[in-house]
């Protein structure tokens, strides 16, 4: 079958758009040098022809839709606003005959054998150094050579439990390793997610082509972790250690922890006691036996490794040294990722195995060796210069340097030659990508994954491809590639019908309660609840203000309006109170205050800031909330403060209503889809505390004053407390203070009333105390909730309505202040009992000289 233009002109017009013309300079995955479709692709290509451009475009849309459904994103470092970027996946998989995958897998196994032996040697007998095969610079200049790990032997002497290789083809079509990933390699989660999406989108092809399944990779990983853990306990606990939500890999951390069923932890969730590792949970310390780490090894332990690490676990290396915890991959294996290792690997392979390295690395010259340096010097235009010891260091492209830049670079290399390698770029192959309604040849790299099964390495019969229109764009990071592709390994015969769905992971033992909720996560959930509820209260209050701002001119009842605006802040804290002492209220000031409170991100306690904080808090507990909830929070965007519409009341009302709808959706999801474990309790407890507090605050701000006209304030009060409808049903339209107060404070059938929140808080406090195994004595937080509840319940509402101060309802003010204090006391007590955790450990003072004698 030919795809050259002449042959295609014979095809119906709809199909000629499948035009695919790789430049012919490099290996193409689909076409051979004569532009014949490679045998592995022929059936698939016929399928594409049948599908036609319309079918391809339609399915591409389907892929995008499925990815969005599944919430697949890729984080780009940094601020919450661009935390999540959609994951882009090309519809067309890369096809590979099973025989090719098998030989690639064999070669990877050999490579892993060598890498493991290398790690054993440098952290043990150092025979390579003794024999002189390993230069001293190679070892002792390498910042990834972790001296504290010297002498620590991992179980079975296996340093690499899981691993990934970044691969590309050279001009001749041979696979070459661009880089080794030895510290919790990323990408396997994406590979599986890609498979789910593409196989659903191209179901016929998937079945007729006998595509080998990839799910076994995670089954093997899980089994191997279980086997490791079984050495330490009959009832082992495995956790996934993540650098946290600021990491670009956090999406996958969450994904893997869910997929594997491991608790996702950050360094602060773990503590070393004795020489064992424990998870800090609400219920106390629970032993941890295996740590599957996605954290770089230098960051793992501020005592033994990098002292300024804030994400590590102090004394983790000690626990590993004592054999009380298994860290996978072993601490110190980051050494193997450095490009300098690739330069010497063929020699090490010969030494260890007496064989040639089957899978070559990207051609690498280490300037620490005079002959290599001479080569780099002579061939600089054709080489990429990279730091020798950093796996993700910045690289310089020799052919892009000016004469002066070249001279400078060579001078830098000459000063510290051991720090640099030169690498000859690998051409990479091209593969068809469906872009803008055409098949285009894009450059491709492949990430291949392996896992140790207890006896040997298993290589995933699939992988993660990254494609980009330009080979230079395809550096090694996943952020660099523009789209991903699935890899289909085609079997000659029918494949095992292991399903790819998630239940192919062995059945988990049933657990009803998740008592291993880390305190950190509980704390964040509690604050998420508070912030979301706070935002809702603000939105309601601002909405009822803006609804009264229909004209530019001063509305009637300015005094009441001013109270309404002032009460956005705690009593006496509004800028209006400060600015206008004695002065008549100025309408423009009141307006300005509303807009500032609504949109000023830099202002503490503003709605904009509250929403931002809620998003930030949610981003750290994404593994604990539904993906949909997270998406809802991300949709809550306010208009920018400088846009002309931002002060146009009608437009603002629309905006506020939208946010309110989203907030309600968030609450609804929480209420409907979270299991009633401790996580939900803390989230809900946060909401209840906040709702009670906000209602008390608004009552305090609006209704204590007895001078200003009451009716508009009562109306606003009911709106803000979302109780207008209930009131009208109950009392028709006569607005009076006592019934309003009763409805928002003491009516326990009104889910907006303060008393209703207190009932819930009493229940939460008791349940959490019971679940976390508190003693029989009533805990302080249970007592505080109970006392506050009975106070509010017994309050004499009629008496509170009396004007007994100078001009104010002072009894009401005093009572409200007491309740607000009690509520704060309750919140502090909860924090103290369950959530104090984030105190960062510090280094001891070090002084050599005696200060006293």
């Amino acid at each position: 079958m030919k795809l050259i233009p002449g042959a295609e002109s014979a095809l119906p017009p709809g199909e000629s758009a499948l035009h695919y013309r790789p430049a012919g300079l490099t290996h193409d995955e689909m076409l051979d040098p004569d532009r014949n479709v490679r045998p592995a692709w022929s059936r698939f290509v016929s399928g594409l022809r049948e599908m036609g451009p319309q079918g391809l475009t339609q399915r591409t849309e389907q892929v995008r839709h499925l990815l969005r459904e599944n919430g697949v994103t890729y984080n780009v470092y940094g601020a919450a606003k661009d935390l999540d970027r959609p994951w882009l996946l090309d519809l067309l998989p890369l096809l590979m005959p099973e025989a090719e995958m098998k030989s690639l897998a064999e070669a990877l196994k050999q490579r892993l054998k060598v890498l493991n032996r290398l790690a054993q040697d440098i952290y043990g007998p150092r025979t390579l150094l003794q024999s002189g095969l390993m230069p001293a610079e190679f070892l002792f200049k390498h910042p990834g050579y972790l001296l504290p790990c010297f002498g620590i032997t991992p179980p079975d002497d296996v340093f690499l439990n899981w691993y990934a290789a970044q691969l590309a083809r050279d001009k001749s079509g041979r696979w070459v390793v661009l880089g080794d990933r030895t510290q919790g390699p990323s990408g396997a989660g994406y590979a599986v997610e890609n498979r789910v999406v593409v196989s659903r989108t191209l179901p016929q092809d998937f079945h007729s082509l006998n595509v080998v399944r990839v799910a076994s990779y995670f089954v093997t990983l899980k089994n191997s972790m279980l086997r490791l853990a079984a050495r330490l306990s009959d009832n082992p606990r495995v956790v996934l250690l993540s650098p946290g939500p600021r990491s670009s890999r956090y999406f996958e951390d969450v994904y893997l922890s869910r997929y594997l069923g491991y608790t996702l932890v950050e360094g602060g969730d773990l503590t070393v006691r004795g020489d064992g590792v424990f998870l800090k949970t609400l219920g106390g310390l629970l032993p941890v036996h295996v740590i599957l780490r996605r954290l770089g090894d230098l960051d793992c332990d501020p005592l033994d490794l990098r002292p300024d690490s804030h994400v590590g676990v102090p004394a983790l290396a000690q626990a590993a040294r004592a054999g009380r915890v298994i860290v996978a991959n072993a601490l110190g294996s980051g050494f193997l990722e450095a490009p300098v290792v690739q330069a010497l690997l063929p020699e090490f392979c010969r030494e260890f195995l007496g064989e040639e390295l089957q899978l070559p690395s990207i051609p690498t010259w280490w300037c620490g060796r005079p002959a290599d340096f001479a080569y780099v010097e002579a061939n600089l235009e054709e080489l990429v210069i990279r730091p020798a010891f950093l796996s993700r260091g910045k690289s310089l492209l020799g052919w892009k340097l000016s004469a002066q830049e070249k001279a400078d670079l060579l001078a830098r290399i000459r000063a510290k030659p051991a720090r640099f390698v030169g690498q000859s770029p690998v051409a990479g192959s091209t593969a068809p990508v469906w872009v803008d309604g055409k098949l285009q040849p894009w450059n491709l790299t492949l990430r291949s994954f392996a896992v140790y099964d207890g006896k040997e390495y298993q290589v995933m019969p699939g992988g993660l491809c990254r494609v980009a229109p330009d080979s230079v764009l395809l550096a090694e990071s996943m952020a660099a590639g523009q789209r991903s592709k699935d890899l289909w390994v085609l079997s000659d015969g029918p494949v095992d019908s292991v399903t790819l769905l998630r239940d192919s992971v062995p059945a988990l033992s049933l657990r009803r309660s998740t008592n291993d909720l880390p305190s950190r996560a509980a704390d964040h959930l509690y604050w998420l609840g508070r912030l979301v509820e706070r935002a809702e209260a603000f939105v309601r209050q601002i909405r009822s203000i803006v609804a009264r701002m229909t004209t530019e001119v001063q509305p009637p009842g300015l005094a009441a309006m001013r109270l309404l605006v002032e009460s956005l802040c705690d009593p006496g804290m509004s800028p209006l109170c400060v600015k206008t002492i004695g002065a008549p209220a100025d309408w423009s000031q009141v307006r300005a205050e509303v807009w500032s409170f609504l949109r000023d991100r830099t202002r503490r306690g503003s709605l904009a800031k509250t929403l931002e904080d809620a998003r930030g808090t949610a981003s750290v507990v994404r593994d604990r909330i539904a993906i949909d909830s997270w998406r809802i929070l991300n949709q809550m965007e306010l208009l920018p403060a400088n846009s002309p519409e931002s002060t146009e009341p009608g437009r603002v009302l629309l905006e506020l209503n939208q946010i309110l709808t989203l907030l309600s959706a968030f609450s609804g999801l929480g209420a409907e889809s979270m299991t009633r474990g401790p996580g939900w309790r803390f989230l809900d407890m946060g909401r209840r505390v906040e709702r009670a507090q906000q209602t008390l605050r608004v009552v305090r701000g609006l209704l204590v004053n007895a001078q200003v006209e009451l009716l508009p304030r009562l109306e606003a009060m009911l709106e803000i407390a979302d109780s207008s409808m209930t009131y009208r049903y109950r009392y028709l339209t006569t607005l009076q203070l006592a019934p309003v107060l009763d409805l928002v404070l003491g009516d326990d059938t009104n889910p907006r009333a303060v008393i209703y929140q207190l009932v819930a808080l009493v229940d939460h406090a008791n349940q959490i105390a019971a679940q976390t195994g508190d003693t029989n004595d009533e805990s302080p937080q249970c007592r505080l909730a109970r006392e506050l509840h009975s106070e509010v319940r017994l309050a004499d509402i009629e008496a509170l309505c009396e004007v007994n101060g100078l001009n104010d309802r002072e009894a009401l003010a005093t009572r409200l202040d007491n309740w607000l204090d009690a509520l704060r006391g309750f919140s502090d007590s909860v924090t103290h009992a369950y959530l104090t955790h984030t105190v960062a450990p510090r280094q001891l003072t070090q002084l050599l000289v005696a200060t006293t004698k």
Partner: protein
Amino acid sequence: MRYRVRHTTTYAYSDPVVLCQNQARLSPQTMPGQTRLEFSLEINPVPAIRRPWTDAFGNEVWYFSVESPHHQLEVTGRSLVDRHVQPLPNPSETPPWETVRGGLASGRELADRFASQFRFESPFIVELPEARQYALVSFTPNRPVVEAAIDLTRRIFEEFDYSPATTSVSTPTREVFQTRRGVCQDFAHLQITCLRTLGLAARYVSGYLVTEPPPGKPKLIGADASHAWLAVYCPGWGWIDLDPTNNVIPQEKHVTVGWGRDYGDICPIAGVFTGGGRQAMTVAVDVTPVASGAA
């Protein structure tokens, strides 16, 4: 000579410390010229756990953790050590320093390859152009390595002021060069920087200096404190100790605890703690000669 050493470090905190995890490097090495007879470690409050291990340099490290709330932590290492005079090479007969450098760079000899561990930059030792210039005054062409190193030691002793008030442990060597003052670990780091910048191997030594002044002689600086000096690598001999703070070649009056690439590898006590508020630290060291059959 036989010595009894007591080294007590006390940390006091304004708020209780709830968890404290530490490493103590207080146990003297046994090596040519020195035999450790006894070592004991006393920790107050009693730690939840204490375990010894041997680090990559052969030093004995004690890990311990205190897991009950405490306002004060006291760590005392007690040891009994025999110290003998070691024969030294005749400095003027040692190989020219360029030859030593060449041997280290080529890595042909096994001993040289292992000594190279102490030839490169490390967290406290960063290459400095001024260190090179400073060192070259002593390291004239073809000068025997130990002779040149001893000369460098003397110059540091004469040209830098010992001044405990001016530096903390982490004073960068660049700053010591500017101010020309420092304490023992600064001078050790300084001379190590000089030697490594030239391509030689030098290691940091942590230990004690015996306090008893000989009759009529002044008391040596650094007495009754933990002390630090360095050793330079001389092929065929191994490591030659040099004390730039006192301009001496450490012999029977220096008790070695251990060594590393710099202070960070062998600091007497390192730890991480949670809680505590403000912290204050005091150190008390006694080195007392005791009668022994051998002495």
